[in-house]
């Protein structure tokens, strides 16, 4: 068990590229921390620096209070689970799991006992003598976990360990990883680009962009109080809708109509010295079919009417897509998010607003629908810096 501290850790490649810049993270003993961000944000580099597989250009890495920058990976007593699992193909499951113990010159009886314990936990007992090539994806993943847990290391590092599994299995494994970590209470750093994993697994989430930490906090906190446009757009699925708007004396003019801000939002915006031009963000779940909103509640929000482009009925809820005439807000952050999602240019022009409606909504594709949204949940962002003007952490 260990606490891991990254103190202004920076990774600069010989060609000058900055992969990680001044990263400050304090990971408490037993904590489960997620590093999340789009590809190329430096999350894997950060993990490799903790592992000792990449050099730290500047700053300090402390494990249990001791400087670890120069330690070889084998001397750090940290186990790692790789995206590709990295199982040794020429060894059986048993040998794979025993490998770290054998290297540590643990006696045979203990090796046997520990491997069998780990196999028991991971439900691998009947597969111990098979080769990795004869295992399914989920089983391989569990062997990789098993190899990490047998030697009870100070910490686990996991590099997108579930990304090679199919969606259903990923959901199951997510739960078991979470259980396992709680059961063992071992400090864990987990890298992913999947915001669902980030939201569901970690005690705390570190959002990275371009090698720079954007925000650190509990999943719920990041969802409720994103520090900037990037975090707001990255956390939450489907992601937050952004529209350009002008703010004048507490009244917001946007493609979704003119909205009077609630006092809370207005005070925050004033305190943040909000400019006239802003980006307004509303999460899909803060919309509702106006017909289903009680009269008393309606006053706390605003409505707009537009034809439904596409309606997706998920059973428990419905997603209605609308097109807004004007261009949606675009900033560097949003473009990066869009590029990461692979949706750089959606044909058809205009811009799409995603709303989540109750399953009982009678919205139909192609028909006009009046949609209500909660004005108190609107978040305003500075279009130039991306800063959240309504941040209240």
């Amino acid at each position, binding site marked *: 068990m260990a606490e891991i501290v990254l103190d202004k850790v920076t990774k600069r490649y010989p060609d000058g590229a900055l992969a990680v*810049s001044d990263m400050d993270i304090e990971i408490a003993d037993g904590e489960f921390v997620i590093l999340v961000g789009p590809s190329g944000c430096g999350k894997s580099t950060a993990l490799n620096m903790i592992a000792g597989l990449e050099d730290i250009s500047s700053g300090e890495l402390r494990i249990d209070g001791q400087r670890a920058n120069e330690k070889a990976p084998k001397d750090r007593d940290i186990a790692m689970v790789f995206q590709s699992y990295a199982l040794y193909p020429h060894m059986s499951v048993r040998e794979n799991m025993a490998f770290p113990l054998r290297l540590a010159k643990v006696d045979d009886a203990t090796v046997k006992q520990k491997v069998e314990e780990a196999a028991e936990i991971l439900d691998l007992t009947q597969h111990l003598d098979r080769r990795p090539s004869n295992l399914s994806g989920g089983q391989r993943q569990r062997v990789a976990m098993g190899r990490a847990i047998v030697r009870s290391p100070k910490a686990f590092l996991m590099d997108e360990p579930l990304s090679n599994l199919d969606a259903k299995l990923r959901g199951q494994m997510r739960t078991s990883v979470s259980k396992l970590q709680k059961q063992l209470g071992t400090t864990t750093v987990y890298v992913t680009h999947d915001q669902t994993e980030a939201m569901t697994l970690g005690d705390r989430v570190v959002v990275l962009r371009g090698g720079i930490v954007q925000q650190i906090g509990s999943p719920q906190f990041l969802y409720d109080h994103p520090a900037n446009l990037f975090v707001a757009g990255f956390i939450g699925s489907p992601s937050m809708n952004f529209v350009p708007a002008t703010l004048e004396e507490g009244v917001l003019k946007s493609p979704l109509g003119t909205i009077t801000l609630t006092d809370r939002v207005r005070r925050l915006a004033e305190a943040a010295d909000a400019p006239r031009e802003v980006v307004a963000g509303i999460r899909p779940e803060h919309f509702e079919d106006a017909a289903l909103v009680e009269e008393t509640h309606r006053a706390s929000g605003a409505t707009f009417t537009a034809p439904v482009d596409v309606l997706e009925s998920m059973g428990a809820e419905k997603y209605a897509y609308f097109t807004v005439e004007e261009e949606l807000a675009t900033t560097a952050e949003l473009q990066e998010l869009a590029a990461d999602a692979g949706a750089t240019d959606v044909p058809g022009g205009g811009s799409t607003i995603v709303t989540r409606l109750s399953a009982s909504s009678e919205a139909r594709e192609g028909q006009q629908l009046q949609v209500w949204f909660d004005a108190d949940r609107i978040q305003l962002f500075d279009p130039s810096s991306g800063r959240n003007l309504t941040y209240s952490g």
Partner: protein
Amino acid sequence: MSQTVTEAPATTEPRGGKAALSEGKKAERRLGLLLCAPAAIVMLAVTGYPIAYSIWLSLQRYDLRFPAERQFVGLDNYVAVLSNSYWWTAFGTTMFLTVVSVAIELVLGMALALIMHRTLVGRGLVRTVTLVPYGIVTVVAAFSWFYAWTPETGYLANALAGDGAPLTEQWPSLWIIILAEVWKTTPFMALLLMAGLALVPDDLLKAASMDGANAWQRFTKVMVPVMKPAILVALLFRTLDAFRIFDNIFVLTKGANDTSSVSMQTYNNLIKGLNLGIGSTMSVLIFITVALIAFVFIKVFGTAAPGSDQGGKR
């Protein structure tokens, strides 16, 4: 639980200049150099020094039969070789053999590659059998052809050449040399091309046939362009190899009747003539020619030099 917000700094100055390499990195560099050293030393000792030495020798009059007359003569040897009709005949012969045999090998090799790649029956057998010419000692194969084309002994000479002795005439000899060369090296060409074929995705060919391409169009418009890098590498390998042709000529004609290659000429000057100066000059000239061929392939055709890709590094 602490909640922190970090203002995103636009740029960060690097701290403290160059960071010292960690133990792991230093060990890696040391290990890398240590592991490569023996191979590098052997290669340099057996080629680097002799190359320099051979350039030095080429500037001297140095005949082992008359060692006393050894002296520095500048470029005289080059003048002597380059104004000698034997050299140019050998050079022309070598070029002819190289171009013709590589061209035939490309066509046959492509056919063979397609057969090995696509055949429905006996794929293992075809691939195994194809390797036989590659594996066989060139001299052995050359003797087989030699006897086949020797009058009376040989079935081919008896069947095809009538009363003549093809290996005593220039043109028939050259064609037999090409036959021997093509037979021996086509499998190698085919294997390199087959590796290229394996890189052509099946879906691409299916898509092309859906788009209405017939077999020949699929071959020329889809396969060949996708395989182009593999084809160029195969051509580069084989051209350079064909230019050094020696074994086949040595056995088949001994270089008689103007069938000598530049390598044969060099060998004759050195081992038979014991003329180190002229032999070295020829060595240097061959080296320059080969370098030119490689240059043309790599710079003009854009052949990727094998091994130059760093793809698998990290």
